């Protein structure tokens, strides 16, 4: 069993990729920009021994759409790599070739937040039903279902007898 990573070590290793700050017990967050994200992740994998992707979380903080990649490894420290995308045109190159499980998380985020991942092998509707309206992203903060509007699934509604 390897010892947990320390803040100093992480800061030292990740210099040049963004700010490093502790975020809770045994967890560090590295905030970086979208264009450096891929390098940062490869660096984390290679230099910090983070061989497991825990999950990819997306958050809408009303200004930007944040993406958080959570990693861990033998050392049991969680490293979160965070980045922000503009809400108007959220586009990011896919990481599903680098991180195999990320393909699924990306499709889910695409559905719920409307972030497009360029280069993803099949960025299709996944969580929502097939006839859910386009350009409606339920987990965005400003989204509310419009009363009386159809969100799909209605054509199979029970016919009045």
């Amino acid at each position, binding site marked *: 069993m390897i010892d947990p990573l320390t803040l100093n070590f992480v800061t030292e290793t990740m210099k040049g990729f963004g700010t490093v700050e502790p*975020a809770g017990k045994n967890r560090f967050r590295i905030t970086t920009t979208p264009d450096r994200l891929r390098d940062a992740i490869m660096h984390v994998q290679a230099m910090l021994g983070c061989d497991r992707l825990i999950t990819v979380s997306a958050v809408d903080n009303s200004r930007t759409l944040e993406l*958080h990649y959570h990693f861990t490894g033998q050392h049991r420290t969680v490293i979160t790599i965070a980045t922000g995308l503009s809400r108007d045109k959220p586009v990011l190159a896919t990481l599903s070739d680098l991180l195999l499980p990320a393909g*699924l998380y990306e499709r889910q985020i695409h559905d719920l937040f409307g972030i497009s991942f360029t280069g993803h*092998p*099949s960025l299709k509707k*996944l969580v929502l039903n097939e006839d859910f309206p386009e350009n409606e992203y339920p987990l965005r903060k400003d989204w509310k279902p419009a009363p009386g509007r159809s969100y799909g699934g209605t054509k199979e509604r029970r016919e009045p007898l």
Partner: protein
Amino acid sequence: MTEVIIPIGPQHPALKEPVNFRVVADGEKIVRLELDLSYNHRGIEKAAEQRDFIRVLPLLERVCGICSHSHTTAFAKGIEEIMQLEIPPRAQYIRTIIAELERIHSHLLWLGVAGHEIGFNTLFMWTWRDREAVQDTLEEMSGNRVHYGMNEVGGVRCDLTPAQVRAALARLPLLEERVQKYVGMVNEEETMLLRFRGVGKMTKQEALAYGAVGPTARASGVACDARHEDPYLVYAEIPWEVVTDTHGDVYGRTCVRIGEIQESTKIVRYCLEHLPEGNIRVATPKTAPTGECLSRYEAPRGELVHFIRTNGTDKVERIDIRTPTLANWTSVAMCLTGQNIADIPVIVAAIDPCLSCTSRITVIDDREKKKNAITFDELRERSRARWHAEERS
């Protein structure tokens, strides 16, 4: 024989939950498969942003009917971390007891379902019969067989009476004896060995690369266990071990689960015997300060992660639930290629999928990097049309 496409699901006897695979098979061999799992999406994450901490717990509990306690504990634990609350030891112990009982019931359930998948209904009957003892204990302690409603932010809702502790302790020896029998059965019963051994193989490297979690990964020799990596509740202070296995196939996953039942039984016994006195909850503020937390929890099926962000109100700003089954699907797709049609249920069941939380993915065949068109599948009608087309050609 020409390639046939067999639609499995959304309503299929092997899987009680909706899932849709389209298996492309050449004779009895699977050439590739297309998965479409999002039949159970209900929008819980959105609703969780709109309900306060009291009302959100029953909702999160119902993400999943098997690991209901896992979700509430993961959430409560996360909020408590943000609020910087220390919950009383008695509450911690009670949470652990329920969590481990849940693990026992879930693994017994799994063993039965796995038996059922290979047509060995007798095993299903027997394990589920014994599972009733666990369910009775849970019902006595919490008031419901499945959705225990035990947790609240700041502690647990009901205390254990000495009578309940005694009753639970009294049921454990029987359970241990029964589990010992299952160990024998799994190793002796020929048809089970035939169906489990060498099926759905996954190496340690693959398990890591495809992000497998829980018993699926542990059966391939990856000792990942959130209880060990990020100890919560009382796992840091009580004796227990991570169960691993090196077979890497369905047989290995069975062994890990049975081993975990035995381990969990020990934990439950230890906790019941060492239950500290004291309060079962602390007073909690109505609102949580701005903060965020990644709450990791080892659910029966693997690591469950709640990513919680709060904003100073009595509701969360965002909760992202990553369930173990979701993490395991990529590896399943990998395992299935090249196997027999008859093995689909076993392999899929071997990760113990509980799809109500996970139903949202379409797995593409990563290995061949092939894009599989996942079209709207009009279940039977569609497959019939395919069948016609293939017959004609």
